[in-house]
């Protein structure tokens, strides 16, 4: 069983993962990270306050960061204006 820890960073603050998760491949890690980001952004949208400055750092048991996702990169963001 290989455990990976998903830590949520927000500027200076960090929310540490107290449990870790058993994931088998880089693809599974990438997918889990993306789902995490989207789940949080989705819920925050309901409240009207979205923080794209969050970052998820995935570390292995030795503390090495194996994957990183900036929330801004978790969604395809569109601004600008829809034509009349």
């Amino acid at each position, binding site marked *: 069983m290989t455990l990976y820890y998903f830590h949520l960073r927000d500027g200076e603050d960090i929310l540490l*993962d*107290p449990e870790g998760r058993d994931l088998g491949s880089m693809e599974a890690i990438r997918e889990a990270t993306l*789902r*995490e980001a989207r789940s949080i952004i989705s819920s925050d949208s309901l409240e009207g306050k979205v923080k794209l400055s969050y970052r998820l750092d995935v570390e292995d048991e030795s503390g090495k960061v194996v994957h990183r996702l900036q929330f801004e990169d978790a969604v395809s963001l569109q601004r600008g204006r829809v034509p009349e």
Partner: protein
Amino acid sequence: MRNPLRLKLEQYAGFEEREGRRLDELVAQRTQVFAPKQDILTEGEKVKEIHIVLSGLAARYKLLDEGERQIMAFLIPGDICDLEVFVLEEMDHGISAMTETVCAVVPAETIKGLLTEMSCLTQALWWSTMTDSAVLRERIIDHGRRDARERIAHLFYELLVRYRIIDEAKDNSIPFPLTQEELADSTGLTPVHVNRTLKQLREDRLIELKGRVLKVLDPQGLRRAARFNPNYLHLRKAEEGLRGEADRVKDLV
């Protein structure tokens, strides 16, 4: 130790002492211990015996396409796992022990015999089944209506009410042996999201979660955070302000 099944059913029906004792005998006959993660019942299994949770925590679940587990509901002491055996041939979902769980195992025939003897038991069991369905429907409402904070607050508050019914919520503290991953599976969220939401609920001084115990510091505050409406639990006696059994949950509903 008092019979949790009796404590739960008392919320609906009043039992005479003789009937109460029959219920006590029912759960004392034969028990089975399930280890954490062990299936109590498997999806597709044909059921001939009723399982009643006496201690521990179990969950109804379905396996999704990619092997992901969706937890649909939790079963605490007093809850009956498989009353539907009377109507359906086989289980349409699985039931797994989340922590070490002891169940009373009662042959379907014994229950049938009891039902003909005690008509109030029939009504109480019927109510129990309907309430179980209502608990499941609340999970459906989660999707698209409740944000993360509301979902978790709602689950916690509902568990508090249910543990109060069986008199296992001293100081508003209830057993909580779930991992964040399991909590995520049961609320349609993800583990980091759960982690963040728990942090918010702690910072708002609504809950304390240490070891495997959840303590509700501010029941009214948690209820507001959940926008909890207790009607789906059909706690008739508490609503009508009847004495005795109802006092256990009156302040919460």
